[in-house]
């Protein structure tokens, strides 16, 4: 494994292109949270031709639903949720310019094909590291669907969020190559 690469959000394409599945990345910048319910709403709005609350061009979406912040804390525990539940909505968001997604667990073939077509990457955060991820979040602001509580869309300022490229923009998939590499089953 090479050294840790730096990635800025919103995405600058020159930084994205050299990223390969298996690369460790520190992400710094502005990203948006969205999980099941927010995806469902955005998907419906796009399908109905309505304006969506966030311009997705070059943006990064983090699949998470944080726990509530204590007084004096920026945010509560804020680790990734299972990405595959968002798979059905993702290709349409990629068409709208979404460039990177942060979550955990494998993605569908349709999502990977769409990522290759639109030049996007999928970054894995370590599931269950909600406290570690929260320590990288410096500012939080709700931007849409506040009625959804933890499922609302939040704008996050993050610094050096430790992530790993799980699927790169050429479709190389660490969820397939990684386990194959270490399997000892004959």
């Amino acid at each position, binding site marked *: 494994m090479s050294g840790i690469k730096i990635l800025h959000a919103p995405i600058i394409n020159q930084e994205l292109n050299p990223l390969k599945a298996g690369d460790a990345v520190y992400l710094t910048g502005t990203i948006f949270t969205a999980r099941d319910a927010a995806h469902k709403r955005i998907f419906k709005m796009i399908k109905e031709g309505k304006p969506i609350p966030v311009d997705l061009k070059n943006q990064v979406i983090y699949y998470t639903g944080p*726990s509530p912040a204590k007084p004096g804390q920026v945010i509560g525990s804020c680790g990734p949720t299972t990405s595959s539940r968002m798979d059905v909505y993702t290709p349409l968001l990629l068409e709208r310019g979404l460039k990177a997604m942060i979550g955990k667990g494998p993605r569908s073939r349709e999502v990977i094909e769409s990522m290759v077509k639109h030049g996007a990457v999928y970054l894995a955060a370590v599931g269950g*590291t*909600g406290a570690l991820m929260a320590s990288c979040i410096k500012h939080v602001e709700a931007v849409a669907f506040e009625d959804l509580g933890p499922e609302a869309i939040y704008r996050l300022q993050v610094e050096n969020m430790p992530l*790993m490229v799980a699927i790169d923009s050429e479709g190389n998939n660490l969820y397939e190559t990684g386990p194959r590499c270490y399997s000892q089953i004959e």
Partner: protein
Amino acid sequence: MREIHTDRIADTVARLCIDACYNLGDDIKMLLEDAVEKEVSPHARKILEQLLDNITIASTFGLPLCQDTGMAVVFLEIGQDVHITGGDIYQAVNKGVQRGYREGYMRKSVLTPLERINTGDNTPAVIHTEIIPGDRIKITAAPKGFGSENMSRLKMLKPAEGLEGVKDFILETVIKAGGNPCPPVIVGVGIGGTMEKAAYISKKALLRRAGTHNPDPSIAELEQEMLESINKTGIGPMGLGGRTTALAVHIDTYPTHIAGLPVAVNIQCHAARHKEAWL
């Protein structure tokens, strides 16, 4: 007859829920430290180190280990010589869950199953009650996240499928789950009984100190064998490849019917949260 007031039960449940979500047991920490030493994949080692960092940050800065603070599963083992005063014990448990999740700033994830309407306070808890000898009550709070709960399975095997069928089903369940339940996992297995008994003992097996074995030597051997075969799959931490897919396999058994062989596999993520207290 010894009396225990429901207020004490509610207070204890609240405290245990918070403690479980913020402070991971040293059993898991030791197994993770051990796994870092043995892991051959550099990616996997990095992930395991992040899990250890997360445990330290959670307890140092007062954050839940994981934002999915789970559905509260509460085990009540009630001494048969205890008299419970102060009202309904189940209401007391739910009052404790409600308070724990509010005061601990934990996420409220419980909702009605079909309408999907959040109950707002993470109740009701799933409460399991057993009567035990003596005049004390043992309370265990085990908040369960659904990344791993969703990957759990149960099958009514044919007796002819026997031990090999059981092994295949356990392995198949872990392989199908892949990276979804946040490996490295703890695998709880219940063999025998009826459908619900198998599921219950598979969950209860997860409460054991991680890495300790069933007192029956043949089952202990099966636990070790399954742990080794699971770690040969290559799934690895988070499903990204490596030799640390499970930290432990806990198997419990119960006699069953001549016509059946139920097997339940309850998958638990590395954030194996459970805390207990005796009243």
